[in-house]
């Protein structure tokens, strides 16, 4: 299961597993995000290429409007997927 939880303005929390089974529904939720976004990934347990694609689309959309889309508190096992994908610097994953 995957959930996108709104926190304060400009802050959301990604919870659960962002896989191919969840990607379609997740992309419609991400499509509703506006403005600069900081996404807390401390509870993101897993991500696959389908999930990476959802985040990439979101990054592109917000970036075109001049807004930042950054991830924070990414767990080590998830961080590796961002690093292998070459997306870590773009999304602020350290």
């Amino acid at each position: 299961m995957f959930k996108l939880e709104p926190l304060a303005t400009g802050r959301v929390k990604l919870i659960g597993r962002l896989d191919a089974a969840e990607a379609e529904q997740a992309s419609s939720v991400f499509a509703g995000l506006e403005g600069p976004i900081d996404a807390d990934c401390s509870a993101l347990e897993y991500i696959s290429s389908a999930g990476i694609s959802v985040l990439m689309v979101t990054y592109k959309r917000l970036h075109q409007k001049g807004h930042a889309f950054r991830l924070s508190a990414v767990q080590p096992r998830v961080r590796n997927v961002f690093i292998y994908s070459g997306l870590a610097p773009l999304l602020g994953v350290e």
Partner: protein
Amino acid sequence: MLVRRFPRAVASIPALVAFVREFFAARGLNAERAFDVDLVIEELFTNMVRHARGGGDAIEVTLDHEAGLLTVRLRDENVEPWDPSAAPPPDFDKPTHQRRAGGLGIFLVHKLSRDVRFEHANRITTVTARLEVAS
């Protein structure tokens, strides 16, 4: 060895995750490494669901573990020849946001596995990936 057949649909992913957990628990493997196995299976499985032509209702998945190596095998029957390793890898020379998303899944499978083998014979595609997973 654990063998099970899963309906040819991305909706099978939660059942595949449960299958991996069942195997890890039975063999007493480090649960933290199960996520890499999930990723390898998901990417190979979804590639078969989306790109293999023909195919039956189900895809067979086998897990085995011996001498620190975990073997993942997916077997897809009655399909046209298909080799996802022929897909172009992500273009790392392009700025990240201009890259195609396709090809990333198989690239990740190679990154996480010690080796990956694609075979097609008698209308059966078999993909075997081996990952280093300590007991």
